């Protein structure tokens, strides 16, 4: 009976303020859609970018040789530092805090031939640790380079996803032999397709990879140097410390001042990620605030309706007080009404948002730029956050009108016409 009575009250209010309530519910719906969709787009984008970022690999540091800018031990400045294969071993031996390490040879424009297809692509020579550090994961049925390939300088080749498509089309590639600069190589694996954000050579999907030892044997007569070194510290928090160690070890070998920070170039992916995460969080907070503001405006609408309702029902409040209603009862009656309006608008908004995401999910995206944006995702956190925001709006907008209602003087209210 109580609930029924409240429902009837609500119905009577609704018929009296139809237009206003409809508008406010719409505003709440819109506010909810705004907050949910903004957050959902933020979430979708974050997930997409994280996925893309993981294309580069794990918590790694990429190291290039630079140019000295400080004269050191009688040596002039302006010397270029170039890494040799044995530097990898040296670093590995000298710095126990490096967990994984690999040198990386690199050549552009190598010729790859299979049957009637000939293409020119980027080639790298690396160590097996690339599998873990740089997410060089093989598709089912294939594998990445291993220690035996290294030891025996095997002529085996690992292909990027798109490179494989270009050469083999739909044909199975693993086990087939292709010609790399006229030398036969056996395909041992094809990399899983991946989005990659952050690269220093071409994208991994278009790169061919062979063992560093094989690469050295074939390509390093004229240019023996590594393009760069990639390593992964045991503890990502100690990355700065490891960096200093690298300066110390290589500085000693190549005779440059350990303080000469131009002698080596680091790309600290770990640090970059922290900043990147902060930016993503910032975007989400910003979008959330925008949505929240919209909701607040809707909340003002609810408060306005409630003030009108309280005024219109002053007489009724007087009657109830005369019949022995406590102030709390009056308060709750109006508060529940405000919450009901908010909940209704919120439910409509949530439903709309879910429908929108479901529809967007179904639309395929081919556009490269749009792919980066990802699809909006309504996570449990977003739903919860929105529900909490709506709850706050409902209670806050209902509180003051309800308080006013509950503070009314019984005699005055009874006189009110």
């Amino acid at each position, binding site marked *: *009976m*109580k609930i029924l*009575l409240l429902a*009837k*009250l609500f*119905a*009577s209010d609704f018929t009296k303020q139809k237009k206003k309530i409809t508008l406010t519910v719409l505003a709440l719906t819109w506010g909810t859609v705004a907050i949910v969709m903004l957050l959902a787009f933020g979430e979708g984008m974050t997930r997409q970018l994280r996925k893309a970022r993981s294309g580069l690999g794990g918590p790694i540091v990429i190291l290039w040789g630079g140019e000295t800018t400080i004269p050191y031990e009688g040596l002039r400045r302006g010397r270029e530092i170039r890494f040799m294969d044995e530097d990898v071993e040296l670093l590995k031996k000298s710095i126990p805090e490096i967990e994984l390490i690999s040198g990386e040879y690199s050549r552009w424009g190598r010729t790859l031939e299979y049957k009637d297809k000939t293409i020119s692509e980027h080639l790298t020579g690396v160590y097996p640790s690339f599998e873990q550090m740089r997410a060089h994961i093989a598709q089912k049925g294939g594998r990445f380079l291993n220690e035996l390939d290294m030891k025996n300088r095997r002529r085996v080749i690992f292909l990027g996803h798109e490179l494989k498509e270009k050469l083999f089309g739909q044909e199975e590639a693993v086990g087939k032999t292709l010609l790399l600069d006229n030398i036969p190589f056996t395909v041992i694996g094809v990399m899983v397709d991946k989005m990659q954000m952050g690269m220093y050579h071409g994208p991994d999907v278009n790169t061919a990879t062979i063992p560093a030892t094989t690469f050295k044997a074939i390509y390093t007569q004229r240019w023996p140097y590594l393009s760069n070194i990639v390593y992964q510290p045991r503890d990502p928090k100690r990355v700065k410390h490891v960096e200093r160690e690298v300066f110390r070890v290589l500085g000693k070998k190549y005779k440059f001042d350990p303080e000469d920070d131009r002698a080596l170039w680091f790309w600290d992916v770990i640090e970059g990620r922290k900043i990147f995460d902060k930016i993503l969080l910032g975007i989400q907070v910003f979008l959330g605030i925008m949505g929240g503001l919209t909701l607040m405006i809707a909340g003002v609408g609810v408060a306005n309706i409630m003030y009108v309702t309280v005024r219109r029902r002053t*007489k*009724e409040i*007087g*009657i*109830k*007080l*005369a*019949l*022995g*209603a*406590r*102030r*709390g*009862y009056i308060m709750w009656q109006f508060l529940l009404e405000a919450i009901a309006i908010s909940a209704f608008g919120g439910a409509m908004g949530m439903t709309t948002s879910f429908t929108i995401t479901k529809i967007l999910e179904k639309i395929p995206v081919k556009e490269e730029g749009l792919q980066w944006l990802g699809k909006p995702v309504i996570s449990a956190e977003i739903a919860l956050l929105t529900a909490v925001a709506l709850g706050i709006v409902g209670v806050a907008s209902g509180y003051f009108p309800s308080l006013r209602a509950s503070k009314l003087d*019984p*005699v005055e209210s*009874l006189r009110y016409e």
Partner: protein
Amino acid sequence: MIRMKSIWRVYDTGKVKVEALRNIDLFIQPNEFISIMGPSGSGKSTLMNIIGCLDVPTGGNYALEGKEVSKLHPNQLAEIRNRKMGFVFQNFNLLNYASVYENVELPLIFAGLSFRKRRKRVEEMLDRVGLVERRNHLPSELSGGEMQRIAIARALVNNPSIILADEPTGNLDSVTGKEIINIFEELWSQGNTVVMITHDPEISSRTKRIIKLKDGMIENDEKNHHNHQ
């Protein structure tokens, strides 16, 4: 049961102070049948509201069943109105969106009674005022006399010790008015205390005590010897 000592009710409207009640002394025993009379603005409604704990005096002492009312919390006053007072108004004051049944049920909801108990009580009361078959009607579908009977049923539903009626027949024709007074008389004869404001000497003549107010003071307070019961 009611003991008022030098009660004042002063309205401070900013510019002027209206002394609605001035130094009222009043004792009411259980099972009295009282009418309050007096010219318009003499303070009748103000006095009744204070008796009913809808309003609090600005001065003086009011003890209800030995308890000082001015010291009570608003929630305690609400409870007194709910349990001990039954209000009947000139313009009925029914909730127009609620059914007859729901109107009568309201005080029981505030008293926190269970659904079953409420239904039993409401049906008893509707039976008593002879309107059981109208239980699902809206007040707007009733005549004035019927509305007032519903209001009385609502006032009585919580078994109050005092029934307070502010010009209960003011909006009714004389025949219907008499029916309403008959109900009050019956309530009194069953042991209730009834206090009623009226302008009609014929109605007041049926009560046992007539209090006449003038300018916020009691001009006359006497047992009614002429009543023909």
